[in-house]
C-alpha cells in the first residue's frame, strides 16, 4: 500500500497553506501597527487595523480622532490654530501628529519601516 498522487498533492498543498499562515501570523501578530495617543489625562493604544472614532481628553477639551483604512487623523480639536487637523492623516510607523495647546500627541508604532530616525519627542 503506497500513497497515491493526490495524497502528495494534498500534502504539499497543506504544507504551503501552513507556511502562508505562519508567515502572516508571525509577521502581523507580533508587529501590529498601532496608534499611541498620549495626553495629560492618560495614554491610549489603538490598532490601525480596526476603523474607529475616538474621543480623547486633552487640557483644552475633547479631541475627535478617526482611524479609517489604516490611517489616523484628527477630525475635531478645541485648539485655536487647528494645525493638528491640517496635518492630515498619518499611517506610517514613526510618524506623529501633535496638538501642542491641547497637549495631545498621536504616534504610530509598530515594526514597519520607520519613517523617521528620531524616537523621542
Amino acid at each position, binding site marked *: 500500500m503506497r500513497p497515491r498522487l493526490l495524497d502528495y498533492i494534498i500534502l504539499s498543498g497543506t504544507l504551503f497553506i501552513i507556511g502562508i499562515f505562519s508567515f502572516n501570523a508571525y509577521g502581523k501578530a507580533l508587529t501590529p501597527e498601532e496608534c499611541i495617543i498620549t495626553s495629560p489625562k492618560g*495614554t491610549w493604544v489603538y490598532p490601525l487595523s480596526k476603523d474607529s472614532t475616538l474621543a480623547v481628553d486633552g487640557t483644552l477639551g475633547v479631541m475627535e480622532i478617526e482611524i479609517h483604512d489604516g490611517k489616523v487623523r484628527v477630525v475635531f480639536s478645541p485648539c485655536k490654530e487647528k494645525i493638528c487637523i491640517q496635518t492630515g492623516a498619518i499611517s506610517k510607523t514613526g510618524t506623529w501628529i501633535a496638538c501642542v495647546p491641547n497637549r495631545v500627541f498621536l504616534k504610530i508604532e509598530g515594526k514597519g519601516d520607520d519613517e523617521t530616525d528620531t524616537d523621542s519627542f
Partner: protein
Amino acid sequence: MTKLSPKILFLSGLLVLPAFLFQNNLPAKASQTALFIILCAAGSRRMLILPPLIAFFSVTLMNLLSPHGEVLITIGRFPITETALHTGLHRALTLIGLIYLSKLAITRHTRLPGTLGALIAKTFFFFERMTEEWKNIKEKRLLVKLDTLMLTLEAAPAAAKKTGSSAPSSRRASIMFALIFITGNWLLLVLTLAIPHA
C-alpha cells in the same frame, strides 16, 4: 442536584443560555459563572479547579495581546489596555460559564428523544462493551485486534436492553429549581439592561 429531573435540567440550561450569552455586564457575568460552577460542584463530588483557572488566565492574556483602549498599567513594554482587558475577561467568563452551564444541564441520565436518542444510547452501549471486550481479545497486533473487536461486538447485538436507567428524581424540587434558576438569570439580564452601562 442529583435528585433533579434530567429533562427539566436540560430545559433549564437551554432557557438560561440566552440570558447568559447576552449578558454584557462584567460583574453580572462573573456572578453567573460563579453560580454555575458552584451548582456544578454541589452536584458532583470531584471538580477540577485548575482547568478553568488556566482557561481564564490564558484567554484574558491572549486578548490583552491585542491592545485596545486606554492604557491602565504598563508592565515593562507591555501595555494593559482597558478595552482589551474588558473583552478578554468577558470572553473568558463566557467560555467558562458556558461550559459549566452545560455540565449543569447535562447529566449521565440525560436522554435525547426520538430515533437519534435511541441511536446515541446504542452508541454508548457499544462504547461500554468495547472497553470491556478489548482486554479479552488475545490478539496483539493493533489493527487485527480492532478488527476482531468490531466483529465480536457486531455479532452480539444489543442484548442488554438497558431500559433507560432513570434515576429517581423529585419532580417538585426540579420545577422549583428550574423556576428560580431561570427567572433569576433573566432578571439579572433585565436589570443590567435597564441600568445604563457607565
